[in-house]
């Protein structure tokens, strides 16, 4: 075996000689002062092979084998943290770890999820984490790979989703081959993404790596959940671990999330109990099914409707206190508002219409009391502006909402008088009928254009719903782009059935996040459905290949409105306000002339596909055929031509 390898190398050198490349005879290191640096990157040849492997002397008969590479230990850490998947597009700065995952780790837990772009790798990790409730790893090449991934890391950061980014890098400049290895190395790799990851480190020993890796893992899963990054130095990956070094895998020590202190809970409870129209607004409040149950309890004890801002699934849409569609009215009528992990508390209480001058005004009643519970109070970054506008809440609590709800509910229950309980009970009938009217009015709105072609987004949503509602399903795309029809019309009852959106509104999240989420659903034996926007899929169509390659069951139904629809409206507004050409808004905002054939694209990537489908009557059959494919364990795509929103 070793002989064969040796022969392989020998014949490689021979081939180089034949090709006219000088055979090196002197170790590169010894000559470093006198050898002039090559003026440009040379193709891999014997010189490079020598620089990489050291001198090959005719006398030295034993190949230089690495039996215990450092990257094996890195795989031990992935296993110790129960990391089931590592998404990656191959890159030389992590070739050691890549090889260890496949051979040393047996390519099982973690399994390599092969991607064709690093933004896909990170997007998959983002979607996966929101369903699996734990991070997977995303392995990226130094500089160029990380820069490709950075967009998706930014989305995940805004979305408070954990990702373990492992980035290859070669820190020791004297070990870099000339040319490409220099531009694919960074002195401080974390600097490229540091404003939107929670923690990064570039360890210089394996034990250092282990401890920083464990810390990173725990930080990513301590609210606010966030992406973290460990730089895996190439040398560290590839070098032999000295036999006398004893490496330890640090024990995981999960951190309990920050909960609100008792005096803050008391003040919040007093405000909510004093109110006659309390209101709950939740965005990324629930982190698990338990969080959903707690929000239901809080709503029920207070008789308070809930507006689900849907950063995650916070409130079952079947519950009569889930009144999101009434939000404009509820905000205006409430006399106490509690915001749970809101991205934007100011924007909940106030509004800024898109009219010239952008006048802002308070929408909530002037005397309404406002409570905010969010880990965001203790975690802000300065460069990117995701903090939103400053708002002085009456009670602001820097704590995790899900962790704080039990004590808030207990405090309310303890303080509540008999009369207050009766008042809440007396409100129930009215709240139930408001809910029933809301559902009826959403249903009536959905009926307008029911038979239209291109297909209305309400029809699309309901045709899908009719076919999945009796299965164990999860919606893995942002429903905002289709007028939130699923939220308004489907029965969401479980946390995992909805995962929110991009976080950073970075287009290109949709496809990879859906595939990542579908991967996690597959492990739980659930069917994942994505309503996939055309503009989004055009960013990273290669995601389809990963779905096909890994047999990821995902039903992708296109919301193909052939435009970047939000932008069409912006252009129209600009031209309208300037009293200019009323027709040119389509230039640069529409994806027509030619129209894209997404079914062809999908088929070209090995994904079952049908379309374009523009008649609503054809949906049912197409959906059931596609669903059969998905249930057999494969992805399927339907290109459906839809109305704008």
């Amino acid at each position, binding site marked *: 075996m070793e002989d064969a390898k040796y022969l392989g190398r020998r014949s490689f050198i021979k081939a180089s000689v034949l090709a006219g490349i000088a055979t090196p005879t002197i170790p590169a290191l010894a000559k470093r002062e006198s050898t002039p640096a090559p003026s440009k990157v040379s193709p891999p040849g014997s010189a490079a092979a020598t620089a990489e492997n050291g001198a090959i002397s005719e006398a030295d008969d034993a190949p230089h084998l690495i039996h215990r590479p450092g990257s094996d230990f890195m795989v031990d850490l992935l296993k110790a943290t129960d990391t089931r998947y590592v998404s990656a597009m191959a890159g030389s700065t992590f070739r050691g770890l890549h090889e260890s995952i496949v051979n040393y780790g047996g390519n099982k837990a973690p399994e390599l999820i092969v991607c064709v772009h690093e933004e896909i790798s990170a997007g998959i990790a983002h979607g996966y984490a929101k369903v699996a409730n734990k991070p997977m790893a995303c392995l990226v090449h130094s500089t160029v790979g990380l820069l490709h991934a950075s967009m998706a890391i930014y989305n995940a950061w805004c979305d408070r989703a954990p990702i373990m980014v492992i980035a290859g890098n070669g820190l020791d400049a004297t070990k870099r081959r000339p040319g490409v290895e220099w531009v694919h190395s960074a002195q401080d790799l974390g600097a490229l993404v540091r404003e939107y990851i929670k923690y990064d480190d570039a360890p210089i020993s394996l034990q250092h790596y282990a401890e920083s890796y464990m810390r990173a893992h725990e930080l990513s899963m301590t609210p606010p959940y966030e992406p973290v990054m460990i730089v895996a130095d190439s040398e560290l990956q590839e070098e032999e671990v000295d036999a006398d070094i004893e490496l330890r895998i640090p024990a995981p020590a999960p951190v309990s999330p920050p909960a609100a202190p008792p005096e803050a809970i008391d003040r919040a409870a007093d405000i909510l109990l004093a109110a006659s*129209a309390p209101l709950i607004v939740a965005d990324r409040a629930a982190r698990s099914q338990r969080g959903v149950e707690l929000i239901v309890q809080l709503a029920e004890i207070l008789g308070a409707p809930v507006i689900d801002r849907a950063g995650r699934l916070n409130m079952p849409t*079947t519950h*009569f206190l889930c009144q999101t569609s009434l939000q*404009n*009215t509820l905000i*205006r009528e409430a006399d106490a508002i509690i915001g749970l992990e809101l991205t934007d508390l100011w924007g909940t209480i106030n509004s800024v*219409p*898109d*009219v010239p001058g952008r006048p802002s005004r308070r929408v909530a*009643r002037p005397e309404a009391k406002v409570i905010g519970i969010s880990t965001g109070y203790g975690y802000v970054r300065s460069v990117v502006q995701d903090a939103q506008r400053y708002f002085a809440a009456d009670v602001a609590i820097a704590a995790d909402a899900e962790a704080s709800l039990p004590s808030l509910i207990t405090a309310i229950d303890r303080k509540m008088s008999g009369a207050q309980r009766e008042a809440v009970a007396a409100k129930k009938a*009215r709240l*139930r*009928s*408001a809910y*029933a*009217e809301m*559902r*009826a*009015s*959403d*249903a*009536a*709105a*959905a*009926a*307008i*254009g*029911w038979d*239209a072609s*291109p297909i*209305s*987004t*309400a029809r699309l949503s*309901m045709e899908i719903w009719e076919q999945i509602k009796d299965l164990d399903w999860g919606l893995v795309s942002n429903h905002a*782009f289709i*007028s*939130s029809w699923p939220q308004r*019309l489907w029965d969401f009852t479980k946390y995992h059935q909805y995962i929110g959106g991009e976080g950073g509104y970075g287009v290109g999240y949709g496809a990879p996040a859906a595939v990542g989420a579908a991967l996690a659903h597959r492990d739980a034996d659930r069917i994942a459905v994505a309503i996939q926007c055309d503009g989004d899929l055009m960013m990273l169509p290669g995601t389809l290949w990963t779905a096909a390659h890994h047999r990821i069951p995902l039903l992708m139904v296109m919301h193909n409105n052939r*435009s970047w*629809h939000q932008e*069409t*409206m912006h252009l*129209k*507004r*600009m*031209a*309208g*306000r300037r*009293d200019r050409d*009323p*027709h040119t*808004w*389509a*230039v640069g905002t*529409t994806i*027509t*002339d030619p129209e894209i054939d997404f079914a062809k694209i999908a088929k070209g990537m090995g994904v079952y596909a049908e379309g374009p489908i523009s008649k609503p009557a054809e949906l049912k059959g197409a959906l059931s055929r596609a669903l059969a494919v998905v249930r057999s364990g494969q992805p399927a795509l339907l290109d459906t031509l839809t*109305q*704008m*929103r």
Partner: protein
Amino acid sequence: MRKLTFAVACCVFSAMLLRDPVEARLGAQSSDALTAPYETRDPGQRQYVRQGCYQCHGLVGQGSILSGPSLSPLRIDSDAFRRYVRNPKGAMPPYTKRVLADADLDSIEAFIRSLPPGRPYKTIPALARVGSSSDHAAEPQLSPSGRAIYQRHCAACHGESREGGIAPSLIGAGRKRDVAAIAALLANPPRGMPKLSPQPLTNKDVEAVARFVADVR
């Protein structure tokens, strides 16, 4: 005759020569070609598409909570329609006579009014299930609440939350008029507001919606 044909041919030919190649290329990305897949032969529909109305209100006027209200059915009269499109109050862009001639606006209005009304949701089984209260733990309602009547009959003009739109805001309307005065106003509406009582609103409905509007909260 032959001379004339020749002259015309020459003109066309030289016009082709004179045409700026850059301009010729830009012409390939014409706005009309971009929206063509969405147009029908109906001249009103074509204007509705080219003027971008459909981007916010949908090709069949179904609207969206994210872009613009439903225009099907159009609940305002021609005067109010024209006034609104020329000088909208919110996020809708204004359309002056310069960019949208009166005649074209009229054909757009005719198109909107020709749109088939939405089917009653109760005739669509999937939607009937969503809308039926029994499925979702809500108790049956004997008569619709003032809020529901407001949403159905007033919100299009006075805003979803009484904040105003093409008609004045009704927030705090109760300070100006009590329930009886609002009911009276409904029976005898001011100019620009349709007469909604005794049809389609019954006296009971009028009382309920007036109560809702008078609520100063």
